[in-house]
């Protein structure tokens, strides 16, 4: 399969991993920002293959994982209003809010439907004028342009029974928060290829310069990931810090200008509470004032989002910020499993906890530590 097989070639990956092992003079700590990359690293055993050369720590880049329980509660609340149909992406359905998930709310009678694109939600609204169709918009910069396009399309076609519950998040404020944290151990970043497809790699220059941290844009296949790690190691070994594009078959320096324009037209940056990580200044997107007619919260509900207290047994915040590995949480693999998740990183297939649960051999799991209170 073009653009896949050549980046999954075992020989090419293995020789890159060998060159990394030979190149390192000390064990470097690199964070992959994106959940898709965590998934790839663990699926192909790259983390184990490089265990002596590089410590890979897993970042907050799974949008499902960082979507606040209170927003999920709000989506369920909307879906429970007669004739309001809430649509969203598949892996969002099973994520628990403070009490239940959209899937369990659907089983209890709420109107919830999985879609593959926000444009599918617009089409549903057009087909069902008797319903109010809400798209629960989650995701990083990767999915925000399609959401923007959906609302632009709804307006152009005069579809009035369509609105958005916006929970989009922005990746760079999270990277900055990790770098600012006193316990930060991240020495270089693998930047998320999909996000860079939209925002471009130029947008990382400022972060790279201010924090003097290497940032390598990379893809998701094993050879991509090994190439990205090798580039990080090379910069670290030579005391450089640059933005480097190692995913140039997809990512342009300036990104996708048209997609960026859609987002710029419809959304503006806002503060957002990330699940597990807390308040993130400018860490989210919201509809601009001129588009607020399409704001589902304004249309159907009133009042601030309720505060949700996280489970004291779930240490997902520490996982999402790279402070611990999933197996270090006492609940991991026992009380917290994909079929009974305590926190979102165990629910989403892209979540770090789910990836560890799925791909790590049990004998490699760390000894659980004692639970240390609230995450």
């Amino acid at each position: 399969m073009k653009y896949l097989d050549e980046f999954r070639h075992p020989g090419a990956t293995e020789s890159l991993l060998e060159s990394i092992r030979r190149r390192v003079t000390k064990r470097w700590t690199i964070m992959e920002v994106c959940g898709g990359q965590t998934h790839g690293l663990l699926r192909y055993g790259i983390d184990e293959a490089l265990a002596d050369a590089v410590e890979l720590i897993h970042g907050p880049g799974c949008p499902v994982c960082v979507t606040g329980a209170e927003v999920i509660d709000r989506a369920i609340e909307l879906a429970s209003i007669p004739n309001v149909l809430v649509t969203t992406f598949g892996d969002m359905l099973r994520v628990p809010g403070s009490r239940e998930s959209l899937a369990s709310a659907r089983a209890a009678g709420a109107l919830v439907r999985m879609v593959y694109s926000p444009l599918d939600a617009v089409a549903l609204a057009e087909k069902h004028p008797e319903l109010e169709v809400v798209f629960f918009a989650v995701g990083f910069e990767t999915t925000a342009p399609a959401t923007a396009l959906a609302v632009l399309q709804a307006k152009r076609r005069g579809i009035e029974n369509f609105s958005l519950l916006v929970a989009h998040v922005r990746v760079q404020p999270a990277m900055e928060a990790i770098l600012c944290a006193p316990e930060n151990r991240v020495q270089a970043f693998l930047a998320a290829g999909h996000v860079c497809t939209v925002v471009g790699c130029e947008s990382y220059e400022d972060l790279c310069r201010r924090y003097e941290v290497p940032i390598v844009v990379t893809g998701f296949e094993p050879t991509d990931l090994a190439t990205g790690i090798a580039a990080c190691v090379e910069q670290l070994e030579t005391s450089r810090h640059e933005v480097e594009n190692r995913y140039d078959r997809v990512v342009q320096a300036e990104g996708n200008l048209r997609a960026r324009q859609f987002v710029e037209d419809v959304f503006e940056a806002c503060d957002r509470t990330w699940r597990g990580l807390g308040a993130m200044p400018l860490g989210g997107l919201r509809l601009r004032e001129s588009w607020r007619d399409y704001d589902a919260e304004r249309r159907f509900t009133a009042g601030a989002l309720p505060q949700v207290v996280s489970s004291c047994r779930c240490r997902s915040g520490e996982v999402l910020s790279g402070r611990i590995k999933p197996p270090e949480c006492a609940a991991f693999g026992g009380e917290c499993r994909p079929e009974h998740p305590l926190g979102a990183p165990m629910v989403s297939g892209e979540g770090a906890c789910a990836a560890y649960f799925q791909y790590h051999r049990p004998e490699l799991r760390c000894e659980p530590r004692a639970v240390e209170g609230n995450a």
Partner: protein
Amino acid sequence: MNDSSSWACPVKHAAEPQRVSLAHGEGGSSMRRLLEEHILPRFDRLSSLPLDDAAVLPQIDGRPVLTTDAFVVSPLFFPGGDIGTLSVYGTVNDLAVRGAEPLWLTLSLILEEGFSLQLLDRVLESVAEAARRCRVSVVAGDTKVVPRGAVDRLFVSTTGLGRLIEPGPSGSATIEVGDVLLVSGPIGRHGIAILAAREEMAFEPPPESDCGPLIEAVAALRTAGVRVRAMRDATRGGVTAVMHEWARDCGGTLVIEEERVPISSDVRGVCELLGLDPLNVANEGTMVVAVHPDDAESARSALQCVSVCARAARIGFVRARGLLPVVVKRGIGSERPLLEPSGAPLPRIC
């Protein structure tokens, strides 16, 4: 002068009903007409028998094998099949992989009030054609009509009766260390075809289901004298679910070598796009076989001689039980757990 046409009632006769009504399920004349005009003529055996409460069948030479299944697929028609073909092949395959020659089927229909009679005819044609292809007779049936909304248009249930051809597979509990695992063809085609059709994904050409009979494939293994430990059609939960059941039954570790697993390019493309593992995706005419290691090659060649199994392949082996029941060897050779699927696979965000 008498003109008979002037005696005709000025009100036109109502057009023939084109939809199933609750009356079709009430046992009176409407139901009789539904049976006589739509169902019985399609099934030789049914139309030649009096409509008794039960079918009396000839004696069979061998041990009877019985299975039953219900089919609730949406959409009813999809590339490569429909609920009619599915309900025959699904049940026939359950008998075949158990080592039986399928002989008879029963057919139970639950119809939603308002369901199109024309679509019902198409489904029944499919059932009849699939039954002819598998050389099984539909010998009994039942029809119920439920109010609109109580079911999704049409549910079909079939029971299959066949005779065991000795010796059948020795059973998954007899799978031993060193045994070889094969699949009869590319995996995941049914699940992806249904997903693409249900969600109206604009793939061109649309992915096609593998919905079809496994009778020939099983016969080929039998003729080749393959010592089959176990055979399973890898339906819901895909290959992964079968592997986990067998690992539980035999107590070994089943190892899948990802690179050997045949996958068609369209299925692979959709799975890549949506973040699904083809090993977890449903099949309807593809089976997994565990065989004695000495028979692995003859099993593969025997399967490949059957047209629908041209891409049959060895995909793994069994070794002594380690920490994990099922592992998959990927890319650079690292082994990873292959977890039992939990619920339907959901596509990822990005």
